[in-house]
């Protein structure tokens, strides 16, 4: 051990070097996010709770019951109930269920949607007490989940 190393050891230089890093942080800006108190902001592309969009003018659903989202889903959690209209030969949407409990938010369903009816919205606070509440039907998907904000 050289004299230099000995002096470093005796005077605890390596620890003091560490404190030189950690010490100044006492006076720096705090990085932590105060999440439940301050609502978190997510970017526009965030994949959160699914939503079925409606036409803002007429209020009718944009879904054309093409079943592409159900076929695109890797888990198969979307169920589109549809019926062919005898007169117009078009599919008509009868019901729509989305099992949000199993969703892994890969966005493949929304990418498959030809009319932008299905979308993964920016809402992420939809924890519930019962898993059955995460089976969302058409009405629930159009309305979106109820977000309960943190209050003191």
């Amino acid at each position: 051990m050289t004299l230099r190393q000995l002096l470093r050891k005796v005077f605890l230089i390596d620890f003091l070097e560490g404190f030189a890093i950690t010490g100044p942080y006492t006076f720096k800006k705090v990085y932590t996010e105060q999440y439940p108190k301050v609502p978190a902001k997510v970017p526009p592309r965030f994949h959160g709770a699914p939503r079925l969009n409606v036409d803002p003018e007429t209020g009718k659903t944009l879904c054309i019951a093409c079943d592409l989202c159900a076929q695109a889903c890797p888990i198969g959690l979307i169920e589109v109930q549809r019926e062919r209209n005898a007169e117009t030969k078009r599919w008509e949407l009868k019901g729509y269920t989305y099992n949000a409990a199993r969703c892994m938010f890969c966005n493949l369903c929304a990418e498959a949607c030809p009319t932008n009816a299905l979308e993964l919205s920016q809402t992420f606070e939809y924890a519930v007490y019962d898993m059955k509440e995460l089976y969302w039907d058409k009405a629930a998907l159009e309305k979106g989940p109820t977000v309960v904000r943190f209050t003191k």
Partner: protein
Amino acid sequence: MGPQHPATHGVLRLKLVLDGEKVLDCEAVIGYLHRGIEKVVESQDYQQIPPHMDRIDYTAAVSNVLGYVEAVEKLMGVTVPPRAQYLRTLMTELNRLASHLIWLGTHALDIGAMTVFLYAFREREEILKVFEACFGARLTTHAFRIGGLAEDIPPGVLDKVREFTDYFPKRVAEYEQLLTGNRIWMNRTIGVGCISAEDAISFGLTGPSLRGSGVRWDMRRAKPYAAYADMDFEIPIGKNGDTFDRYLVRMEEMRQSNRIIRQALDRLPDGPVRAKVPKVIKPPAGEIYHAIEAPKGVLGYYIVSDGSSKPHRLRVRPPSYFNLAAIKKMIVGSLVADVVAVIGTLDIVLGEIDR
């Protein structure tokens, strides 16, 4: 030791034979996190598989998906546009930083340096914010699609990344000042978990665990993929193959990744981000093996296609599985406290080992 032990990084169980504090024998028991991903994907379309690949190594989801989509593209003969190649390189390197920062934080925490954990996660948070803005998710990002990216990255993100690359080397210097010269850190890591270059090669170690033993092997240089052929970077290697050398290798790798990100930002070409691929992907019948350098080592995908829209067989060569195999060689004869250091230095992810 384990499977529910805070220092085993997941659900690893180690059967240790001890003489007092000395380790006489060791056997790793794995399989607690087996989800059967390789079997699950046999019933999935090719474009439905990337979300599952995210969940193999969940700390480096972007790298996993890159390996998979490049394997399928190779099988189909798709040429990816240059902008997509550069963005892939950029995002993969950011993910390498995120993965190494987790390693640094948890490894230092295991050995007893709490502060570095908080600092490392602060920087990782910035990277995850970039992923969130680009891909819509933080951890299991589903970043790439077959043929390129789903969509171009949003405006403003590149400036954030540039800002990050400006201050990141200073932060790495901070970690180094906290750890490299610290005598507790040196006593706990120097000479612990030694493995020679020959042993490392015969065990099939890859990534920083191999380079720590002094073998200059990196898939990014050996068989360039994405845009790595255009990038200028160095491959750091260690000398003694102990925990301290692997630590130094990873720290230097972080700086080199930062350099690659910088180059990718400077040379980012314009143009489309996705090649024309059919809606239903049906690669020709045949088989392909494609390997990339994931943060933990060489990650290989072996795909057997029978010409249908689903793979006949998909085999993943996970780096952590082979790295874990060397654990017996590394810890027999050392102390129980060193076992924690060796698990940390191997940088294993159990999701990848069990799949």
